[in-house]
């Protein structure tokens, strides 16, 4: 506490010292020039530099305020930071006013909108969890657009009704002015929401809904503000249907136009980061400049600037994170946070200071109280109504408690204050009243609702963000669920959300990655390598810490009995993919230290168990990491991966190929073991076993597959795929000893550098095989096609070759039923795969 008082005292002194000379300098004016009579050694140059000096000083003072109340941590637990900053602003404002008798420092709208707001919005967009955002975009838009319009309309109309009823006494206003006031105060404020919700940690869906709404409602606010402002200028008489229609059109133009501007700038940023490999020093700067330009460009075109900046950040984050060097990425992240947080602090402090100014205060109890009441009531009504409608369509409906928190979280903030300051005094006689009301509303929502938010959330037992570490079983099971859902959606053939997203992912991979990402980034876009890399770094740091604790890192080398040569084990492919690991984490033998540890721990784990508890813990650590890095990501998984810290995962064509090969192989295996009378591991083979006498006949029905599939427009690509399993089952009942022998030697888990053996067989055998007549007719996959498939599995090219291989299949479809296969045909077909 003494420290608190000491620092406050210092602050106050500094402020007094500054305010005195500033006022003094303004008083004495700039006109007089003193003629010098002797050489001055030191001159007091206040007039020349007072502007930047004051700016810097105010920034410093605002940020120091944060320090002040950090000294008393229990205070921050009760009152949110934003509230405390406003309080300090009051104190400072009081001091300045006391010194100068006039409020010299106020939050000017221009400063706010052009120097303080853009970085907050850019940061919001850049760190937005995209999958969550786009997953809930429908709900967010409903709340942002319809909700804000509802709030504005009801508030304006209610106030107008009360004014007509005479509750407010004699104020010079009208319906349009009240509607304008309603529209500017109706919007939920992103700055306030960030400030309060970040400290409360509600579950992610709730957070993204409120946060997304606060960002996207700017489109509506800007339009409503401009429309009503124009209407007030035109006068009530000139408003007819045309003007109203123009108003509606302007909404679409402003909102969509703003977003488009943002997307264009996002593209520019991504393209730019693609080329800045050699100027990594200044690379992060481009993001800020271009982000700011997107804001300004939209503002210049009178489109929605906040929307533009948001979408710029949202769209470019993935590509620039992939393109830029890690250091640049972390620089960008940290700097954004500094700017955003700094701006927020300054805004709240000045919101407090601006209040201490008697010249703006006009008190009309009824107006203020009614506004507060109506804001509250109509917000809740709006949220409940809209959620009720949305719940008819949502998979996971929002429950009552979440709705309550959402309604309560409708905080108003500095944006409303900035907008009200922009009003023209001549048109709006009651501007001062509106300013006062806005300030009161802002204080009420930020302070009161901010303070009571946390207790409310705890009391209502709102689902909080999950922080607990999931068990292994949960992790595996979650992944199983994802795969399951994807499979069920495929089986039931319904185009769900997954279908559209799948299409988007395909489009993205095919075009956007090629356009916007450097080749290296494209290759290492694999989720596995990124997470593996990050985990390696994490491992390495923890081992270093352990080493420092124990004196040196020698313990690692001594206890790891296996000295794994990383290169040999994983082949050249790996080193190409992970240049960072190769170059940065070099151990003494030019082998990545962490990979030694990673590989060696499991193989010596049996010994470790008895010896060292620490090692056992790292093995547990290991199992989680192994799962994390190696579990196949299902298609749906790619979309719902939300974490501010980890990079996004994308579809891994390697993974897809691996799974596909394995599935085909297992089908073939089960098929083969069924033939041999061996008890099969899979259920499907059980059926085939019973079907043995009919197999030959069934082979025919399969071969007619392409015929029917071609006509089926809905499953166009199924035709190509359909030919695959068909071929797996064809050749039933045909004994091919060469084929059998090869299958027996097949290793179920081939190490990575081998060509999967079933493909190798195809290559080997196709050379001495003469394709039979039937094979040429019925095999959609000729040996040449097969050979084309083989390199596909080892390369990381996009699945273009897959598609390429697909299309000839459908085109070569037969038009007639094939004749029964003579026994020697088995030779040709047994080698396919």
């Amino acid at each position, binding site marked *: 506490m003494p420290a608190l008082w000491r620092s406050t005292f210092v602050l106050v002194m500094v402020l007094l010292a500054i305010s005195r000379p500033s006022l003094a300098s303004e008083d004495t004016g700039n006109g007089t020039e003193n003629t010098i009579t002797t050489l001055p050694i030191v001159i007091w140059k206040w007039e020349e530099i007072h502007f930047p000096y004051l700016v810097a000083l105010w920034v410093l003072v605002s940020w120091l305020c944060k320090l002040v109340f950090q000294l008393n941590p229990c205070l921050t637990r009760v009152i949110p930071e934003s509230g405390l900053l406003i309080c300090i602003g009051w104190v400072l404002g009081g001091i300045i006013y006391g010194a100068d008798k006039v409020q010299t420092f106020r939050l000017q709208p221009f400063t706010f909108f052009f120097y303080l707001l853009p970085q907050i919005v850019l940061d919001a967009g850049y760190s937005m969890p995209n999958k969550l955002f786009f997953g809930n975009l429908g709900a967010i838009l409903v709340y942002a657009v319809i909700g804000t319009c509802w709030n504005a309309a009801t508030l304006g109309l209610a106030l107008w009704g009360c004014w007509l009823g005479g509750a407010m006494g004699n104020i010079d206003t009208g319906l349009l002015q009240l509607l304008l006031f309603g529209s500017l105060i109706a919007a939920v404020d992103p700055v306030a929401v960030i400030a309060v919700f970040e400290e409360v940690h509600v579950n992610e869906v709730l957070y993204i809904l409120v946060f997304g709404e606060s960002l996207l409602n700017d489109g509506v606010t800007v339009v409503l503000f401009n429309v009503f402002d124009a209407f007030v200028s035109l006068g009530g008489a000139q408003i007819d249907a045309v003007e109203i229609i123009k108003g509606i059109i302007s909404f679409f133009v402003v909102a969509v136009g703003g977003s488009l501007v943002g997307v264009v700038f996002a593209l520019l940023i991504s393209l730019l980061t693609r080329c800045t490999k050699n100027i990594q020093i200044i690379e992060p700067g481009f993001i800020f400049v271009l982000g700011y330009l997107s804001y300004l460009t939209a503002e210049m075109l009178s489109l929605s600037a906040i929307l533009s900046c948001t979408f710029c950040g949202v769209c470019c984050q993935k590509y620039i994170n992939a393109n830029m060097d890690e250091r640049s990425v972390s620089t960008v992240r940290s700097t954004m946070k500094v700017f955003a947080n700094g701006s927020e602090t300054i805004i709240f402090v000045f919101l407090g200071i601006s209040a201490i100014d008697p010249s703006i205060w006009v008190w009309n109890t009824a107006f203020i109280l009614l506004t507060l009441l109506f804001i509250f009531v109509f917000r809740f009504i709006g949220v409940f109504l809209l959620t009720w409608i949305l719940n008819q369509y949502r998979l996971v409906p929002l429950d009552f408690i979440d709705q309550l928190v959402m309604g309560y979280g409708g905080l108003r903030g500095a944006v409303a204050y900035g907008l009200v300051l922009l009003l023209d005094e001549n048109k709006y006689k009651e501007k001062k009243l509106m300013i006062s009301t806005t300030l009161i509303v802002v204080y009420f929502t930020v302070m009161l609702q901010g303070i009571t938010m946390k207790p409310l959330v705890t009391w209502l037992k709102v689902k909080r963000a999950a922080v607990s570490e999931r068990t292994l079983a949960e992790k595996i099971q979650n992944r*199983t669920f994802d795969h*399951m859902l994807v499979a069920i959606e495929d*089986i039931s053939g319904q185009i769900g959300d997954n279908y559209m997203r799948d299409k988007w992912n395909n489009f993205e991979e095919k075009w956007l990655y090629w356009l916007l990402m450097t080749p290296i980034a494209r290759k290492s876009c694999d989720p596995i390598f990124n997470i593996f890399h990050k985990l390696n770094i994490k491992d390495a740091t923890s081992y270093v810490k352990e080493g420092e604790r124990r004196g040196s890192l020698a313990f690692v080398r001594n206890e790891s009995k296996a000295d794994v040569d990383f290169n040999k084990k994983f082949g050249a492919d790996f080193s190409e993919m992970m240049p960072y690991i190769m170059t940065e984490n070099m151990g003494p033998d030019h082998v990545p230290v962490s990979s030694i540890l990673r590989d060696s721990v499991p193989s010596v784990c049996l010994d470790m168990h008895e010896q060292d508890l620490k090692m056992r813990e790292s093995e547990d650590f290991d*199992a989680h990491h192994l799962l994390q890095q*190696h579990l196949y990501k299902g298609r749906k998984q790619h979309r719902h991966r939300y974490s501010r810290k980890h990079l996004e995962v994308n579809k891994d064509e390697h993974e897809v190929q691996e799974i596909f090969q*394995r599935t085909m192989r297992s089908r073939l295996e089960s098929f083969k073991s069924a033939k041999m009378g061996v008890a099969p591991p899979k259920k499907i083979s059980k059926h085939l076993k019973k079907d043995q006498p009919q197999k030959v006949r069934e082979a025919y029905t399969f071969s007619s597959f392409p015929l029917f599939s071609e006509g089926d427009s809905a*499953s166009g690509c199924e035709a190509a795929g359909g030919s695959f399993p*068909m071929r797996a089952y064809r050749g039933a009942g045909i004994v091919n000893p060469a084929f059998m022998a090869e299958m027996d030697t097949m290793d179920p888990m081939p190490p990575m550098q081998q060509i999967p053996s079933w493909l190798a067989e195809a290559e080997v055998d196709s050379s001495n095989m003469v394709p039979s007549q039937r094979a040429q007719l019925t095999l959609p996959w000729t040996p040449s096609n097969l050979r084309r498939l083989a390199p596909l599995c080892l390369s990381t090219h996009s699945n273009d070759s897959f598609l390429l291989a697909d299309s000839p299949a459908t085109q070569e479809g037969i038009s007639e039923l094939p004749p029964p296969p003579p026994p020697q045909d088995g030779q040709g077909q047994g080698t396919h795969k």
Partner: protein
Amino acid sequence: MNWPLYVTPAHIVRLYDRFEALDKEKTGHLRPQDFGAINRLAMNPIGDRIIGAFFSPGQETVDFHSFVRILAHFRPADKKHPKDPSMPEPVNSRTSKLKFAFQLYDQDKDGKISRAELLQVLRSMLEMQVTEEQLESIADRTIQEADLDKDDAISFEEFRKSLEKVNIDHKMSIRFLR
């Protein structure tokens, strides 16, 4: 045929269209090969297991009734109507969904997920780079975490308990089946 509230009539119509589209032979039954024709399923690591789940033990074909019944597992649970204790457990309740998931692991239907069965699933879901030892250590740790009666296998109750924090209804529901 008794259709005890599996899905709504609108769903039945859509699912029947799908059933017919899959049933190329027009036999009125689906066989594994019909499922195998779905291209994207082959790219699913547990695709074959899911296909297998449609077939009751001993059966080689799936008729429309069973098709709908299995898919009905993925309906979001109906929170509005309270559970009627006299009626059998609805197909999309949390327990039924968990049982469905359990069966995917427990291929031999002995009511327990043995270490070998878990290994099989893990192997199919993890990439080929993962070595046997690593797989085994993961399987061991998983069983260690979940196995309460120390019989080196996971029974249904243990399975259910290990997933009590997971929102099964959300994780195992398809929107269109609402």
